[in-house]
């Protein structure tokens, strides 16, 4: 080895040590295990977790290992062998993919540290410099570090307290929701999406489901309709949805956010097919026709029901999508952002139709991001918030007026901003509000028991 080689080798060793030291401190700042920085491969998984790109982190880890395998193979296989060429090709392919994935995970981490994307160039050129800076300098702090781990319960929200308030309600009518938690396993780790959602919705209610992005609105909807089962008990008019899912799925109508229907089919055929799929066999042809007509009438589609779905306006398409569920006369009707893409007047008309549906004795739960233009139509408001452990929790359930009083805000949008994180331009008071509501519920429960 000549002097230049020695210098290069020395630089390699020193930079590797510095990089590892920096990473160790970054991991500790982010409440991860520092020693993971010592393990090649695993360190990129950890960076992925920090940057919210766990899946990419795992891929980067696997590619790192594969890369090491192919590199070793090229060291031992004779150069004249065909397998040497194959191993080299594989090594280069894996290295390229690994580089892309490392860039992705590091970009995620930069976002967590609220840093500009251009830092990636320094990371590629000399990763030990940014690693040391982010790890040791107090100037660089990660964003959105919660006070709680995601499997930790917030004080005051134990299910027992809330259950006390609800279990005493003997009514079999309406929707009774007791979600203990909704947990998923992501790459071998537990992750809670929802915890402690307990509420009772009477029949004939139009319910507004509010919450910021990632608060768990769709997760709660899926948990309620039994599509993605949670650790929960969901009773609809006295019947357990989970235990009787095969039967109950026909009694629940779910209208997704997008207009999921065949655009090149005719409106009447779309509704008729929906009726055939969702209605019991015992419903006669005449009765089905009658339902079809009444659905078209209820949704204000009379005179517009001819022709292809694709030719209809946004509002009409949305009503057809609603009609596909309404035609089966569901007891529980859930709509995920039915007004997305609709202007104010059309959206208002749509919610007025939903009000009519609720008035016919059904429970209608609707998610919307523009609630104030229709807030007066709702009987109840469910506010979900993502706590600092990134778990969706119940921040409020009650009438719109009670919500305004509880949050001390005059509009629904301001209410959502109260619990939204600061990243989303909110006030970041989710933890405080969740605890406040838990205390309120506990007090109500205690009063009811007394």
């Amino acid at each position, binding site marked *: 080895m000549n002097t230049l080689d020695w210098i290069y080798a020395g630089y390699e060793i020193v930079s590797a040590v510095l990089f590892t030291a920096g990473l160790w401190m970054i991991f500790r700042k982010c409440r991860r295990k520092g020693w993971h920085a010592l393990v090649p491969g695993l360190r990129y998984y950890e960076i992925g977790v920090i940057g919210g790109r766990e899946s990419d982190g795992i891929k980067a880890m696997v590619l790192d290992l594969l890369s090491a395998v192919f590199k070793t193979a090229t060291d031992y296989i004779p150069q004249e062998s065909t397998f040497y060429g194959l191993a080299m090709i594989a090594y280069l392919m894996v290295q390229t993919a690994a580089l892309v994935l490392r860039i992705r995970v590091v970009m995620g981490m930069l976002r967590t540290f609220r840093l500009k994307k251009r830092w990636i160039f320094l990371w590629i050129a000399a990763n030990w410099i940014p690693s040391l800076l982010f790890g040791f300098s107090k100037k660089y702090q990660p964003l959105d570090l919660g006070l709680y781990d995601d499997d930790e319960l917030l004080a005051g929200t134990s299910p027992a307290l809330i259950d006390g308030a609800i279990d005493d309600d003997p009514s079999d009518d309406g929707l009774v929701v007791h979600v203990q938690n909704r947990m998923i396993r992501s790459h071998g780790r537990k992750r809670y999406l929802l915890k402690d959602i307990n509420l009772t919705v009477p029949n004939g209610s139009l319910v507004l489901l509010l919450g910021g992005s990632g608060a768990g609105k769709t997760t709660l909807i899926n948990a309620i309709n039994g599509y993605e089962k949670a650790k929960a008990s969901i009773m609809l008019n006295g019947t357990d949805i989970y235990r009787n899912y095969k039967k109950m799925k026909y009694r629940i109508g779910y209208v*997704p956010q997008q207009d999921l229907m065949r655009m090149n089919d005719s409106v009447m055929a779309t509704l008729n097919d929906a009726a055939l799929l*969702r209605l019991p*066999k015992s419903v006669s042809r005449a009765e089905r026709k009658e339902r079809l007509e009444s659905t078209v009438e209820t949704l204000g589609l009379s005179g517009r029901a001819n022709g292809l779905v694709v030719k209809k306006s946004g509002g009409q398409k949305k009503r057809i999508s609603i009609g596909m569920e309404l035609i089966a006369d569901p007891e529980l009707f859930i709509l995920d952002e039915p007004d997305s893409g609709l202007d104010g007047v059309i959206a208002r008309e749509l919610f007025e139709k939903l009000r009519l549906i609720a008035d016919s004795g059904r429970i209608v739960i609707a998610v919307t991001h523009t609630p104030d233009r229709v807030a007066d139509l709702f009987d109840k408001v469910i506010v979900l918030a993502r706590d600092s452990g990134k778990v969706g929790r119940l921040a409020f359930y009650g009438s719109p007026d009670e919500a305004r009083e509880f949050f001390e805000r005059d509009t629904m949008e301001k209410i959502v901003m109260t619990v939204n994180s600061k990243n989303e331009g909110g006030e970041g008071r989710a933890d405080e509000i969740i605890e406040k509501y838990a205390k309120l519920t506990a007090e109500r429960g205690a009063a009811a028991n007394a």
Partner: protein
Amino acid sequence: MPKKLKYRGRIAQTGIYFGKLIRMFVYQNDWKVLPMAALIGGLVTFAVGTNMFVTQEGTMNGCFALTCVCVWNGCFNSIQVICRERPIIKREHRSGAHITSYIAAHMIYQMLLCIAQTAIILTICHFAGIKYPETGLISGSFIIDFGISMFLITYAADMMSLAISAVVKNTTAAMTVMPFILMFQLIFSGGLIILTGPAENVTNFTITKWGLNSLCALGDFNSQPMVSLWNTLWQVRPYEIGGLQPVKEFTDYIRKNNMLDQFLQDSGAYGAKEAFASTMDNVIGCWMVLILMIILFALSATIILEFIDRDKR
């Protein structure tokens, strides 16, 4: 005790979906696959010429080209049909739709499309001047036997694409995968490139191999004269060795004695292949493999689609 409500079962739902597909055929321009089949059939038969079923080379080229047309048609019939409406299927599945019914409806609908496309191609071949042999090995009618083979190739390719369409999440991914599948099918058919060693075993997994074998067997490839050998000899007539021109002498001898037809016929025997044996067992064997593939692909599509609820939103 409340009466237990019964909802429409798999057979009734198959009918609902079949009706939907027929409407899509009309409204969503799915009918365009039929004129497209005619167009591609016309182009290929134009290139094939009229030597099909006359010489081994003509039969091989023609059968290979028709196999390609069938695979092409089959693939493009269904490569996008599931992935383009995946979220809709997911919605319907959660409302009580059976995936088996959905796939069964597609199988029936695609079968009708494939039959129509086969009929179109055969008609075009007829008008292009290809003379079909009169008797067939299985049914007695060549057209029926040849049509069944072409239909099975098209339908197997169709079901393969249906399975791919069930795997991929969107049409972009489907159209990215498609060329690789087509290339694999054509290269590993064994018709275009002579494969040896492990690559030869791979051919057993292609629709094109079994399709080509059945078409060549039905076309009585092994009994036909081979012209390529004579053409090659004719090209190298001037070749000299030790002041002599043995190839020229040989070809002149054949022509002078009016032995050309005999030579072409005899050289055809050297080009005969066991896989193209014009026997009922061979053809039925090929058909069975294609039917097995159809069943496996349809089954795969069903199983894969049963997990549609796991799709992320």
